[in-house]
């Protein structure tokens, strides 16, 4: 790739015990996050978990009930959006319908009274970067969803702000376009080097794009980690179930006779971590089979709990059949049933017990 057209140095964002509540309703509860400079951080969680509220608080569009927000080390908690030196892409794109694409992109520059020559030059660079050069005179209403998305991106990056916030920017696009834009946004961020905070409810988006995934649940931080760690070492049963399709199988430890002495623990194992093994320790009765092409998803019952397993297609399995399953000892996840926290110290012990 050619030399980047623009270069931006990102700023770190710190949230210190930030809360937001409306009367009795607590949308964000005592949330502390570190977003390193120049990183791509995804705020992930189910609907209503407070991820958009968090983003809007960083943007300055929502006031903070308690706690502090720091951008580049400066406390911006009470500052308006315009003083926070950031850009934002909205879910609906929020393009100004009466302005042309060019006018939309340079809106911020005009507001800040950047000279005409510089405006034109930057517009040209951004338009080239995003492939919008031929559309500059059109109105947003005459563009496709993907093109509108690019205009919104253009408006966000032309200001060369150190931080870019995105609120579910891809949710209005179809699956194919979404995949393309995912790659494009990620490469744009790496190319330009700004700090990105990206809100999504789609775990695939978060896992594939982000350097750091912040998983939220009911306004609280569930886990903040790299995608790989989030998948391999989920900190709680919620994280375990939220990441991965199909979700991790979770069952109480005492569902197995061999573990009846450990009732206070919850065990988890991913469907793809199981494999067929003649002498495997787990016996599963298949109830239903889903053929996915690359593999088979089998709905089983193990020790009276329902259980999903991903199996290769080369061995035919049918509902009603009973199969033996095996797994690697470190594929097991153990969660404390009381605190909901991960207990890595017990994995080997339980693994050995189960496999014995």
């Amino acid at each position: 790739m050619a030399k980047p057209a623009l270069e931006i140095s990102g700023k770190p964002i710190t949230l210190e015990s930030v809360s937001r509540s409306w009367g009795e309703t607590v949308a964000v509860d005592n949330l502390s996050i570190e977003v390193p400079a120049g990183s791509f951080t995804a705020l992930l969680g189910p609907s209503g978990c407070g991820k958009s509220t968090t983003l809007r608080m960083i943007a300055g569009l929502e006031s903070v009930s308690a706690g502090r927000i720091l951008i580049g080390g400066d406390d911006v908690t009470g500052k308006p959006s315009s003083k926070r030196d950031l850009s934002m892409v909205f879910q609906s794109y929020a393009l100004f319908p009466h302005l042309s694409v060019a006018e939309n992109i340079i809106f911020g520059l005009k507001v800040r009274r950047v000279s005409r020559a510089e405006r034109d030059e930057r517009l040209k660079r951004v338009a080239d970067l995003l492939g919008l050069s031929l559309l500059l005179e059109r109105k947003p209403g005459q563009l496709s969803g993907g093109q509108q998305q690019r205009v919104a991106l253009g408006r966000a990056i032309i200001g060369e702000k150190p931080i870019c916030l995105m609120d579910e920017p891809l949710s209005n696009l179809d699956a194919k376009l979404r995949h393309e834009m995912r790659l494009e946004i990620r490469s744009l961020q790496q190319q330009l080097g700004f700090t990105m905070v990206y809100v999504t409810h789609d775990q695939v988006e978060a896992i594939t794009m982000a350097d750091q995934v912040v998983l939220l649940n009911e306004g609280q931080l569930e886990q903040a980690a790299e995608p790989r760690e989030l998948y391999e070492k989920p900190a709680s049963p919620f994280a375990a179930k939220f990441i991965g399709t199909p979700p991790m199988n979770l069952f109480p430890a005492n569902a197995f006779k061999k573990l009846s002495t450990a009732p206070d623990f919850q065990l988890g194992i991913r469907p793809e971590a199981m494999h067929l093994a003649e002498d495997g320790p787990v016996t599963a009765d298949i109830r239903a089979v889903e053929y996915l092409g690359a593999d088979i998803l089998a709905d089983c019952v193990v020790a009276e709990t329902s259980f999903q397993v991903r199996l290769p297609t080369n061995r035919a399995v049918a509902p009603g059949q009973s199969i033996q399953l095996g797994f690697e000892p470190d594929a097991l996840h153990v969660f404390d049933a009381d605190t909901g926290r991960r207990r890595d110290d017990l994995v080997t012990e339980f693994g050995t017990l189960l496999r014995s």
Partner: protein
Amino acid sequence: MRDLKLKRDWIHGWLLLLPALVFLFAFTHIPAVTTLINSFFSTPRGRRSAKFIGLDNYDRMINDPVFWKVLWNNLWFALGTIPASVALAIVMALWVNDKLAGRSFVRMAYFTPTVLPLIAVANIWLFFYTPGFGLFDQITGFLFGWPASNYLGNPETALNAIIVVTVWKEAGFFMIFYLAALQAIPVSLKEAAQIEGAGRWTIFWRITFPLLMPTTLFVCVNAVINSFRLVDHIFILTDGGPDNASALLLFYIYEVAFRFWETAYGATLTVALLALLSLLAIGQFFFFDRKVHYK
């Protein structure tokens, strides 16, 4: 056979159109055409029937100083009421669109002048303007020690006094349209502009106002029509006086046609009014069409 069916369809079509056509012709087209025809005839009186007199009535109109006077009055009236009531309507709509305590009460209060009949409104304002005892005199007398003044009886101020009443009456009505338009603008547009560093003023002029343009066109067309159409309050407040200082074109037409019974001349003036209104309407659409963004 096929012809018969076609013919029947044709008859059905016309029958369906008939009720609307009858009313449209009886109350709009025929009177308009009759007015035009009458303007070329003399006024029939007693045993003297109407005579074709060509353009004599128009000649009289052009040489009628009162016609020019009321036309000027109407122009001032339009210039005084339209921008003021539209601006006031936008300001009020912006205000009641914000979060504020008792918002629905304020909205209702703004709309009240529209609900009240103009005759009743004029009576209230008649009291406000009463020399000496009226609200305005009480206030200006108390605050600045001004002497009693007869706002409605003074040729200098009579038209302005009526303009104030009209603005008060119309602004609330227009506000409702602006309020609806404001609520149709997505909040995210404002937020996006905020993030880009735009202040309230910039957001209004660069985003909100352009997006309100379709409403402004609608409101302006209405306001122009109203400025020629509303005369009820003149009857109550000034009766066109003093010395025609507050008479408007339509008021003059009424006087000529139904007080002096010069129906032919009245018809001539009406034709002038219609021509003026159509010109204005066409001009407005032409002028605004380039500036209005429709979604």
